[in-house]
């Protein structure tokens, strides 16, 4: 049975207390994925708000299991929509490297920020959230092959960006191994 059909089974509407629990538990995760995707705090905040409002307004319901993957899936969709918006395509981005105090954090962020958004999302879901290729594919609605390709290209680009710090990004860090 396909994912779309699964989503219809056993879904539950969210009561206020449950909504508060979900927001407290996952707001930062949703925000981080949006931030990694869009590279902008204000836009990531908007996406975070959109995702949870969708839940509050009853426009979508979470299945009892897998709350987080579904929230991240909606987040990825909202980010894709944001990337296509007129505003996004016509207004420059802020330099947010200044938000990181640690020089290494700034360097890593600048390297990741230089990646295309679709690569950043894969990197984030793998490196930070710890999802495997299949799970990343389900969240981003792309094939496992596409996950592999994006991961490999992202690692290659990161290697080039951080090439003055040899060893920071090993030639093969297992990122694409089946887990």
């Amino acid at each position, binding site marked *: *049975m*396909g*994912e*779309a*059909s699964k989503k*219809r089974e056993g879904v539950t509407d969210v009561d*206020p207390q449950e*909504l*508060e629990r979900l*927001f407290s538990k996952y*707001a*930062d995760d949703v*925000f*981080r994925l949006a*931030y*990694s995707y869009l590279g902008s705090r204000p836009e990531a*905040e908007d996406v*975070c*708000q959109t995702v*949870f*409002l969708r839940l*509050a*307004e*009853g*426009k979508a319901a979470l299945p009892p299991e897998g709350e987080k993957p579904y929230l991240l899936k909606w987040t990825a*969709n909202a980010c*894709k*929509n944001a990337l*296509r918006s007129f505003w996004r395509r016509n207004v420059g981005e802020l330099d947010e490297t200044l938000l*990181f105090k*640690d020089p*290494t*954090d700034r360097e*890593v*962020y600048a390297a*990741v920020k230089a990646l295309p958004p*679709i690569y950043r999302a894969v*990197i*984030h879901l793998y*490196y*930070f959230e710890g999802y495997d290729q299949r799970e990343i594919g389900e969240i*981003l*609605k*792309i*094939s496992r092959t*596409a996950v592999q390709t994006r991961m490999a290209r992202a*690692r290659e680009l*990161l290697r080039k960006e951080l090439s003055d710090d040899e060893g*920071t*990004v*090993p030639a093969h*860090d297992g990122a694409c191994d089946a887990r």
Partner: protein
Amino acid sequence: MREQYRHMMERVTLDEDKKEEIMNQLREAKPARRFPRPLRTALIAACACLLLMGSAFAAVYAMGGFASVELQETESGKPGYGLTGGDFRFLSAESLTDEVLALAETDPAYATRYFIGQDWSAAEAFSGVTLPENPVIDALDIGGCFLSVQSNDAGPTWLHFQQWTRGLAVSISAEAYTDLMGEALDPEDFFVGRYFAPGYELSTEEYITRSGLSAVIVHLAPGDGMPDPEKYNTCERYEADLMLDGFRYHINIDVDGSSEEALEQLHGILEGFAL
């Protein structure tokens, strides 16, 4: 790299003030008004501009990967059947080729554009979409194919592949929606109606392939009151519909020889799909 990335991203959190602001909005949010499901389904059916008669003609089944298969008749007396729901898997619009995205961007309205090619593999290469393999279909004497794309402001929402044999006796189509449509419509609300010349007598049966795939087979037998064969296709026909790997497939075979041979050919095509 993983540790460095984690170290950096752990510092990325939603500000407490912003959390409080969003939480307050969530507390004030009211459930959006939604039509009850039967009404939504009815509205979508109406959008297809088909006013259907509720009659004793109707019989509802669940098969072929659809929520329901229903024999119907339009107000003008055309017999047919409607398919509701389907086990759709939305294609990622991002995975489509620049050519398809360009088609959608050319006219961001709900427009349809055509790519016409020699065979289905050309349309696959053009679109970046890989369709389920079927060696029986590959072995057919294909005369041509097209790919049509519908789009909205965000990009392509629906792709429809169709190919046909020389002489047009067999046509096969596969259609899928992209994730740009997925947000807008519940798969259980998807509806497609297929209607034929007045006078056809329809019967349905479920066919299960050896690999366990379920398909709806509809037999169209010419009956009394068939229209002018010069104007309408009035030959005996078999139609098959099924959901496979997120695609809605439709196969049509005109009976050119014996009815048994046509049905056997249809079964062969269906058996060519592997789950």
